[in-house]
Every structure is written in structure tokens, then in C-alpha cells.
């Protein structure tokens, strides 16, 4: 991992900020998000480091991370962030960045039975649509 002038000035950081509507630069790395994340045990890059790598333009490194797909968007981090950064939105932006490159949902709503649609948690379904197979 190396930070360079080119990477830090790249458009990727701006894109993440544009998609998420969040100021990645606002994070001052207190670590509260990671401290409270209920699924952090399964993440390879912790939430506060996601923000840090984004700040430094290391977006490519993030796009290969499991963290993007482990995050449950539960908003625990967001509700406690002292810098008012909506971290799930940033992570969602990273997912979108990847999806826009590769395209294709893992699930199509039409393929699901009425029973699954009625019983499965909505947030899980939304995630599943986006979690495509490479």
C-alpha cells in the first residue's frame, strides 16, 4: 500500500464523496465506529480504516475488501460518529463504485417466491440484490 500524489488527487475520492454525499475528509480517526461495530469481527478492513484509506486515495485497495459486503448498514457507527459522517453511506458508495464497474445483481426480485419475499428481512434482500457473484 502506497500513498502517492496521483492517488490522493485521483477522482475516485471525489466520486465516493459525490455518491455518498458524505465528506470523507471530515473523519479524524477517533475509532468510535470500529469500536461499536457489531460485525467488525468478520471484517478485513475496519470501518475507521475504510475512511482513512478513502481519505488517502487508496480506493482501489478498498474495492477488494470483504468489509464492503459484511457491513450490515445497521447505522450504529453513524449514530455515534462525532464528526457526523454517515459511514454506511460511504461503504454503500464503495459498493456502488464496484457495481457500476461490473454490473449485475446477484438476485433478481422476480426469481424470489412470494414466501421468501414476505418473510425475509427487507435489508437482507436489498443487500442480496447487490451482492453479485464475480
Amino acid at each position, binding site marked *: *500500500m*502506497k*500513498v*502517492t*500524489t496521483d492517488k*490522493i*488527487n485521483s477522482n475516485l475520492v471525489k466520486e465516493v464523496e459525490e455518491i455518498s454525499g458524505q*465528506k470523507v*475528509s*471530515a473523519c*479524524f*480517526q477517533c475509532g468510535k465506529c470500529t469500536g461499536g461495530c457489531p460485525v467488525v469481527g468478520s471484517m478485513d478492513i475496519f470501518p475507521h*480504516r475504510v475512511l*482513512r*484509506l478513502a*481519505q*488517502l486515495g*487508496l480506493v482501489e485497495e478498498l474495492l477488494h475488501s470483504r468489509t464492503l459486503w459484511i457491513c450490515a448498514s445497521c447505522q450504529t457507527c453513524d449514530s455515534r460518529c462525532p464528526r457526523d459522517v454517515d459511514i454506511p453511506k460511504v461503504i454503500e458508495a464503495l459498493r456502488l463504485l464496484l457495481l457500476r464497474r461490473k454490473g449485475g445483481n446477484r438476485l433478481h426480485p422476480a426469481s424470489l417466491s412470494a414466501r421468501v419475499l414476505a418473510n425475509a428481512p427487507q435489508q437482507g434482500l436489498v443487500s442480496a440484490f447487490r451482492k453479485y457473484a464475480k
Partner: protein
Amino acid sequence: MKRTGVFICWCGSNIAATVDIELAVAAAKNMPGVVFADQNKYMCSEIGQEIIKEAIRSHRLERVVVASCSPRMHENTFRKTVAAAGLNPYFLEIANVREQCSWVHKDKETATAKAIALIRTAVAKALRNEALFASELPIERRALVIGGGIAGIQAALDIADSGFVVDLVEKEPSIGGRMAQLDKTFPTLDCSACILTPKMVEVAQSEKITLFTYAEIEKVEGYVGNFTVTVRNRARSVDMSKCTGCGDCMLKCPVKVDSEFDLGLVKRRAIYTPFPQAVPNKPAIDREHCRWFTENKCRVCEKICPAGAIDYSQEDELMTVKYGAIVAATGFDPKKLGNYGEYAYGKHPDVLTSLEFERLLNASGPTAGKILRPSNGRPPKNVAFIQCVGSRDKAKGNPYCAKVCCMYTAKHAILLCEKVPGARPFVFYIDVRTPGKDYEEFYNRAYEEYGATYIKGNVSKVFPDGDKLLVRSVDALSGALVELEVEMVVLANSVDARAGAKELAQKLSITTNAFNFFNEAHPKLRPVETHTAGIFLAGTCQGPKDIPETVAQASAAAMKVTALLGKDSLLSTPTVAEVDEKLCTGDMSCLVVCPYGAISEKILEERRGRETVRRKVAEVNMVLCQGCGACTVACRPGAINLKGFTNEQIMAEVEAICL
């Protein structure tokens, strides 16, 4: 034997947890001379003091011993207590059973034994205490402020505002100091000159303030209320009464020298004012570089001056003035970077110190306020700001934090973004420290609104790389290596004490810390006083601080000065040396060791039988004597004694403690 009372303080649990108070009280009651002993949880409280006063009355006490904290804390309190009950305040003796006993011991049994020994010692001394009386000293109602930066300016203005006369002595040809070199000030981005120059002008216009620029302190003698100071007014070679400040001489002078004010980024002439808004706006000739003084040629300025103000024959003049109080406000120097070759300072023109960058920002600076690379005159796009250069570095810099760099770097980052559209500031830091009103918010703006990238990791090395600079570091937060190509590097070099601070401290008889910053009398409760009465501190000569703190301290120092000068007279301490002329042999060993010049020779005329004999003896100036006691040790016949600490009293203490 004098009727003595002993009062033992618990100091809450400070003493009582380690010393068995009951046992100590019982022991005290059996000491010779003691007719009363008591204890209280807080002897210094009103209730505690009442106990002492009541006991003095009801038990007809003649001497009082308080076993408590260090006399530095409460000796004065208890002296007032016994005085209120009608005793001479010097009949009080303190046994320090806290700092010298309970705080430094754990075992209660031995600590109690030691406390009892200390009380016995104090009682032995108290029995020999004699009544002492303070004498009154006159006060010279004039103040001296040394240093004409914002600290000295503020102190002088405030003292003058209280109606006292002030002399302001500044080494440079103009007042203004470091603040005059700055462009904007954090966190409000006020223009530094816009808020400073009105104060400079106010100093010049004040009827109470006399300004001595291009002047230095030569010698300081005397004591609080009565200092005698010799000031060297350096030869300016310009007659201040004739000069109109037109500036023609500076245009025609053929000599060009690095401007100190612009840190060598531009040249000044040999006849110069440091900057356009100088006060006084009258030039001085730098004799080290002037062609007339170095080569006996030229005299162009003399020919050009329409007022006939040039005077090459001027010489340094010494003036001796009496002052009641002195404020030291001599400021700081930015750290020289000789030890930091890794940052390529001096090797690449685009590596600047923060104050040099500040000059680039300033409209009256070398680039008229444009941020341009010294190498090619073009604006930089990426700029690396390196923090803690020579600060927090015990290996080859200063171990302390320079305090102002985090904030001025945030300011530099913001101003860079405002002045150079599209430019990117990168700040390499160890910690970002922003305690202060509106400071954190200001720093937040630098990275949130202006997009300054803060990288936690100091730059290890700056590599000149063609016309660019490569900076290498690590982002300690992510572990990522950092290698940036930048066009300019700005080094936040540390704050050093002003060159010559040590020498001035010696002249003033004040102490400095290991880094030559002047020591305050108490880090919390006496932050503007020094250990030398009548000498006060303002600004960065005491330690790194920013402008608001400097101004606050300067006003505080001014307050202390006016409180002193407002008194009718001063009470001198009576614990001074005293010569027994009968025993004095006149060998004057005391005179040699006295650090205050308080001892002189005196000739006695004595009748011996039929003839009159003249005999030399020592004499103590009670006003100059500080009661250090060095003379009493040097005196071989034992003729000189320190009142309140006589040889008899000390010996009695030694005997008591050896019991």
C-alpha cells in the same frame, strides 16, 4: 524560658495518615518551654487560626510553633495570625512535617518519631526567636519594559494607561517584534499588521511612554522599587530629531544586505527601517555593512538627505535610569535547522521555514503576498507542511512542544488553498494539538472545508527530485507508505529562547530553565512574577505561547507592575545580615561572597586609652541584603549573623535534632 505553644496540623490526611497526631501532641507537651499543645484538621483554616489566637490569649503564649506544611506555603498566614493576637510575627516558627516528613515516608511509626524531632527542633529555635521589624523602602514610580514585540507593547500601554511612566527598550530599529512579520493570525485570520500597528502608533504617541529603539540593556543593579538600569543606546547614525522619515536615503544606498525582517528572502540597504510600518519610521545605519564605515567611501545618504539628519559621528550612549519595576518581554527565535539535513533546508530553495512561508503570504513580503516557489517564481500545487521540526525531539532538538505550529499550519493550509486555486496542502504531523477558543473548529475547517490532507507520520527525508521534491513518510493510521511529489516544503521549526536570553537573565538576576526560557515564580499561581521581586515576565521569553496568551500575560504583568508602583512604600524583609562590630576583624571575607553587593567597608574611630584608633569593619546595606546567609558562613570570627537565623538559633536546632 519563653512560654511556647505547639499547634499540629493534620492537613486532612496529608499529614495525619502518616504521622500519629495524638502521639505528637503528647510528645510536644513534654518539650522544654512548651506550655500548650493542640491539633486541628486544617490549622490554616479560620477555625485553626482561631485556636492559635485563643491559645495565645488564654495561655499567655510568647512563642508559637506550627507543625504543618512547608513555610513557603503558610508561614505568612501564621505570621499574620500571631500578629493579630499581639505577638511579633517573627515569634512564629514552622515545623515542616508534610513535605519533609509525611509526604516522603510510608512507615507511620518512624514518620511520627521524625515529626516529633522536627517539632522539637522548631521549639528550640522558637525559644531563641527575637522580635524583628520590617523597614520601609521608597519606590521609584517608573517602569522599564524590555522588548518591543506585542508583549512589551501591551505591557507598556497598560502600565501607561494606569498613569505610570514607562520606558520601552527595543533592540531593533523598530518595535513590532515577531507579530509584525506575520501575515494573518489564527483562528480569526485577522491581518496581523492591521491589529498590531495601531498599538505601535499608540506607543509612539503616548505621553507616558518613552521609546528607546536600537537600544540594549547593559547593566541592572538594585532591587524591587529601586532598580538602577544602564541602557546602551546604539549609535543610529541618524539624528532622530532631524529625520523626517522620507526614506530617500534607503532608495539611494548602494549596499544590499539580507533583510533580517524578511529572513533573507529579499535585500535591504545598509541604511534601513526593518519594514514599511516601522515605529519609529526613521532609519538606522547598519555599520557592519555601510560602505562609509567599512571602506571609508560613499556618504551617499548624507548627500541625499534633505533634512541633514545623517550623522556618522554618533557614538553609543549609555544612560542610567532608576526604575521601580521591570517587565522582561524579549520574545523568541525560530529554531535554526542546522541539525536537520534530512529536510534539505538550505539545499533546495523550495524548502522553507514557516516564518519564511509567512513572509510569502504577506503583502509587504518579498512576493507581495503571492505564494511563489523561490526556485522558479511559479505557484506550487502540492505543498508538504512538516510539523514538529526540532520540537518534541529530545535527541537533537527541543523536547518540548512549540505550541503554535499546529495552529499556524492549519492557517497556512487554509491560506494556501485560498491564494492558489487547486493547490493541495499535505500536513505531516505527530499529534494535532488545538486547545484554545475556536482553535479546534479552525483546524476542522482546514481539512473538512479546504481539504488539507493530514497524515499522521513525520517525514523521514525530503529528496530534491528534478524541480520537484519527494517527501517520504508513512501514514501511521493506515500503515500505508506515503511518497508524495510536491513543489514546496514548509518546515514548522521549533520555538527557541531568544539569543542572548541567558545573558539578560544574568543581568536581571532571574533564573532560566534548561532551554533559556525565563522561569516564573510558580508555574500555576505566580505565572508572571519571577523569583526576583519587581521583575515580571510577558510573552514567549517565558515559554512558547500564541498571541492571545502573550497579550493576556502582558496585561497581567502590567497589572503586577501598577500594583507595585501604586504603593506608598515597600516593606523590606527584616531577616537580613547584621554585623557585630565588636567581633568584626575587618578582613572582609563577607564582602567577597555576597552575591548582592550588600556589604561595604566602614571605618570606626575608637578611643583606646588616650589615642583614637581607626578600625575597618563590615557594614550591611539592609535594603540590598536578601538574607541568603553566605556571609555568616564566610565570617571567621563569627561576627556576622543573619537575623531570624542566627548562629545560636541554628546551633540550638542542631542540638535539638540530635537529642
